[in-house]
């Protein structure tokens, strides 16, 4: 009795969902894409960049892909709130009838959504979330940005390539920081380097002088770091410069000196390296085109950040997923279409690893220099086709 009742209930629920899905399917072959973003709150900048990228892509390529029209539905998380992300994902799928999800700035948001997309078979494009284990949580995830291990490995490679032997790791004390620490440590040791010390800096730190002092005392020749953009990164680099570490050691971060953030720094930042999948100075035609459309839409002074580029690539993947659709949205076909897919993005040649659904792409090492009186990320070395290593 109870089992039969249960079956009925589930069947009923699925019928409702099916009806809704077909309803939305009828609407002139429109595929709805749910965008879960940080449009307000402390990460509002990332939300703004996400929206800009979608607008730019649509401005360049229109809303049609293959025979179908794409429609975006936006939902705001407004801070660190994975449970809300999950609730929004359910809402988007059940109520708004979206077939694909994207957005996902913070990794926990994606982790929270994984069971939902597993149950509903909803392909989901991670536009920024970079936590290494995410893709194992759902076969429906595909990464448009980086896996944090990639830039961390390149930090270590670049240091080793430049003959550095004594590394000090200073990362923010949260999961992404821990990931960077893990990958860097492994790779740097493999390359024959020594980790002189590792600090996990509490996120509530205001005055970073204590950490700069610890680092200076350890006399490393390279400092690998990863801190949230904004006040923490600025405070940390200022403290390093004040203590003279910037002069005595190579300092290499990941996304701290991203182009949009660069105006917040003063000259203390000059000389700092970062390792990431985009460099504003790239001259490939895709990047030139992107810069042009961004300047047209958002003004000549608009700086493109990494959080513009990977969501933009994410939209490319979504268009690819839609392109192969014939009639009713087929999630399996969508996933097949992106596995192994390769194209040229503003950030260089891209390929989705068919097995892991991770991005295989270039990682660029950039250095902050003063060019024409302006702080600029200058590309110093390109590591090509970096996949995700096994740690």
């Amino acid at each position, binding site marked *: 009795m109870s089992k039969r009742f249960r079956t009925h209930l589930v069947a009923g629920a699925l019928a409702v969902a099916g009806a809704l899905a077909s309803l939305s399917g009828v609407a002139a072959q429109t595929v709805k894409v749910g965008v879960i973003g940080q449009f307000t709150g402390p990460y509002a900048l990332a939300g703004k960049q996400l929206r800009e990228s979608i607008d730019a892509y649509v401005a360049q390529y229109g809303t049609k892909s293959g025979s179908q029209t794409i429609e975006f539905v936006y939902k705001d998380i407004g801070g660190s709130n994975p449970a809300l992300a999950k609730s929004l994902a359910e809402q988007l799928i059940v109520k708004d009838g979206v077939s694909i999800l994207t957005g996902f700035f913070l990794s926990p948001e994606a982790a929270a959504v994984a069971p939902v997309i597993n149950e509903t078979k909803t392909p989901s494009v991670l536009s920024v979330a970079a936590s290494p284990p995410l893709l194992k949580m759902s076969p429906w995830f595909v990464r448009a940005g980086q896996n944090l291990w990639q830039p961390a490995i390149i930090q270590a490679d670049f240091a080793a390539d430049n003959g550095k032997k004594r590394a000090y790791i200073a990362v923010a004390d949260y999961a992404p920081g821990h990931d960077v620490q893990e990958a860097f440590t492994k790779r740097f040791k493999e390359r024959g380097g020594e980790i002189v010390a590792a600090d996990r800096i*509490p996120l*509530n730190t205001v*005055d970073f*002088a*204590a950490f700069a002092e610890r680092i200076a005392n350890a006399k490393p020749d390279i400092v690998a770091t990863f801190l949230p953009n*904004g006040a923490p990164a*600025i405070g940390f680099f200022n403290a390093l410069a004040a203590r003279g570490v910037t002069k005595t050691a190579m300092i290499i971060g990941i996304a701290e000196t991203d182009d*949009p953030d660069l105006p917040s720094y003063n000259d203390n930042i000059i000389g700092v390296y970062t390792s990431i999948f985009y460099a504003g100075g790239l001259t490939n035609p895709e990047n030139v085109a992107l810069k042009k459309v961004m300047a047209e839409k958002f003004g000549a002074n608009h700086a493109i950040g990494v959080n513009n580029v990977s969501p933009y690539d994410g939209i490319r993947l979504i268009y690819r997923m839609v392109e192969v659709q014939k009639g009713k949205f087929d999630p399996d076909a969508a996933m097949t279409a992106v596995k192994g897919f390769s194209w040229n993005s503003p950030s260089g040649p891209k390929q989705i690893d068919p097995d892991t659904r991770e991005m295989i792409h270039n990682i660029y090492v950039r250095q902050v220099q003063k060019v024409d009186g302006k702080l600029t990320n200058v590309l110093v070395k390109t590591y090509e086709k970096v996949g995700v290593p096994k740690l």
Partner: protein
Amino acid sequence: MDYLVSSLTFIAIYGVSYGMVIFLISIGLVITMGLMRVINLAHGAFAAIGGYLCTALVSSYKLNFYLAVVVATLSVAVLSLIVERGIYRQIYRKSELDQVLLTIGLAFITVASLNFLFGPNVVPSQLPATLSGTVELLGRDVQMYRLFVVAVGLAVVVALWAIFNWTMFGAGLRAAVDNPSMAQAAGIDVSRLFTLAFALGSGLAALGGAVGYGMLPLEPLYPFKYLIIIMIVVALSGFGNMRSAAAISIAVGVVDTAGRYFFPTYGAFIIYVFVILYLLAQIEGSPLRRKS
């Protein structure tokens, strides 16, 4: 041994200078809270406005930094006169809860406005280049900025001491902190005193916001981000006690710096544990328990 000596001088110099910044942004609230017993959670908003104003003056109007600090401080003091007459005046007699809510509301409005006007990013530093230089002190290179902050802090301490001891305003203030109704009875215009003290407090916050940039970068969420540390100083130093406010600020700076230096991984806890233990230790017969 060398390690110990260098650690101790480091903690002394950096802890004290950090403490001085905390002192600068908190002392205004210590004064107004002592006088008016208003739980003003928007105090950090005045600091943020002062800092933003100073930065904007330097970057957009090419004003000299030190002059901009003065202009920003005075402007915020004037602004706060209006806010005090218009808004704060009405909550002096309301419950603690009302005060908390109204001032959180003002802080929210400030955050939203700063975000609207200046964008969500950290605004770039406009501290003059001379402050980035270093001088040798106690056998180590110390950034000029740290010494500058300490100097400003000491100047404020001396100025406040002078105001409180040598001026009529200060005498009235002291009387009113002790007992407002008695001061009123003694012919002191307490209402006017409140307004002036509020302007003084807010102006000091603005000064802290402008001068403290090197350690507390300006961003829209500033009013909330540093609120906890401001409130810690106020709660620990008691109502209106400036001497203990200075001592507590420096203690907080030193404890925090030393904590992060020696136990970097547990640095996040140390300051909170310090606060909890300190306040709980005060339970019996503490002036903090006094209900206004």
